[in-house]
């Protein structure tokens, strides 16, 4: 198991509930240990197991919830 940390820039959130929804959906994915989205900073921090889940899966999960995500440097 190899835990990696990923920072995503999120756009399209209109309230803190959106941030909660993103976290809820991400944490339902197998391989994600924690997801923390900040509404104010528009950033989502994800800890995930590289062997179980890919970055693309994470981004597509956020998009499925209804927001745009892109890896931030």
């Amino acid at each position: 198991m190899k835990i990696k940390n990923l920072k995503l820039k999120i756009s399209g959130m209109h309230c803190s509930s959106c941030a909660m929804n993103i976290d809820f959906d991400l944490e339902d994915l197998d391989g994600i240990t924690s997801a923390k989205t900040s509404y104010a900073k528009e950033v989502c921090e994800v800890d995930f197991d590289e062997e179980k889940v890919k970055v693309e899966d994470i981004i597509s999960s956020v998009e499925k919830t209804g927001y745009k995500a892109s890896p931030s440097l």
Partner: protein
Amino acid sequence: MNLWVIFLTGLTIGGLTCLAVQGGLLASVIASREEEEIEEGVNKKNPVFPTLAFLTTKLIVYTAFGFLLGAFGSVIGISQNTQIIMQFAAGIYMILIALNLLNVHPIFRYAVIQPPKFLTRKIRNKSKSKDLFAPALLGAMTIFIPCGTTLAMEALAISSANPFMGAAIMGTFVLGTTPLFFGVGWLTSTLGDNFRTKFLKIAAVLLLYLGLTSINGAFIAFGFPINSQTIASSFKTSTVQQNGEKLYSEAPVSQGAEIFVNANGYSPNYITVKKGSPVTIKLTAKNAYSCASAFRIPSLGISRNLQPNETYTFSFTPEEAGRITFTCSMGMYTGTIEVI
């Protein structure tokens, strides 16, 4: 206090911010129940009962919380100045939230306090529970995940400095959010993003109105010379004078007046007195459960919290002509003593 505006704020914002996350949680807990019931073979495919249970406990818990907030406000608001400052701060907060809804600048995003992670996780876990009481418990727990607007309403409830008023504010707000919960899927998918943005704008305007009213009330209660009342009355004076009418013809001049304190303000709210001789005013509180019962005359330093059916008499001698404003502690209900 205009409870209709609060109801409308609940109705518009409830379609979005509250519903966005709570609707999802509710759907999740209903789905968990259905799974269980399908296994047991008793599923009736009826989400109305869990939805009602969810909304009922939510309403009860928020109303009780509003009562506590109002009581808390009345404790720390014992000093009139603290209460005015709180009301002013609540008004500013509502405006910040409104500016955020209007997307004025990303800085206003920080006005929205996000609930801590451990709480949101706990609530999420509850939503996966198959327990019969899970929907009701979930409804009660949503108190821990307030959206920005809910926080603004809570600030307003504190600044009302009255437990009944606080309960009314929170209860009305949550009641306003309920209708949309019954149309969750239908609404969000049919009306789409465009509608959502419009809804947010309506909510923002209502919040702006509430915020400005709150600040204006704080100004009036403080006796600050510039507020909507003094601005409006200076307009009135100049037009009446232009028309050459007699200015104070409506109210008879009397040095003794009885003012009734009702749930929705003061009656009469305009009296005329002569300067130089003592004025006696008798206040009679009827069913004064609103903030009208907290009677103030900022410029004379008169402050009295009336109990229902209480009467209170006070005297003063006005030395110069002009207007003396009387108001409730929040500056929501006002009246004028015209000194001639």
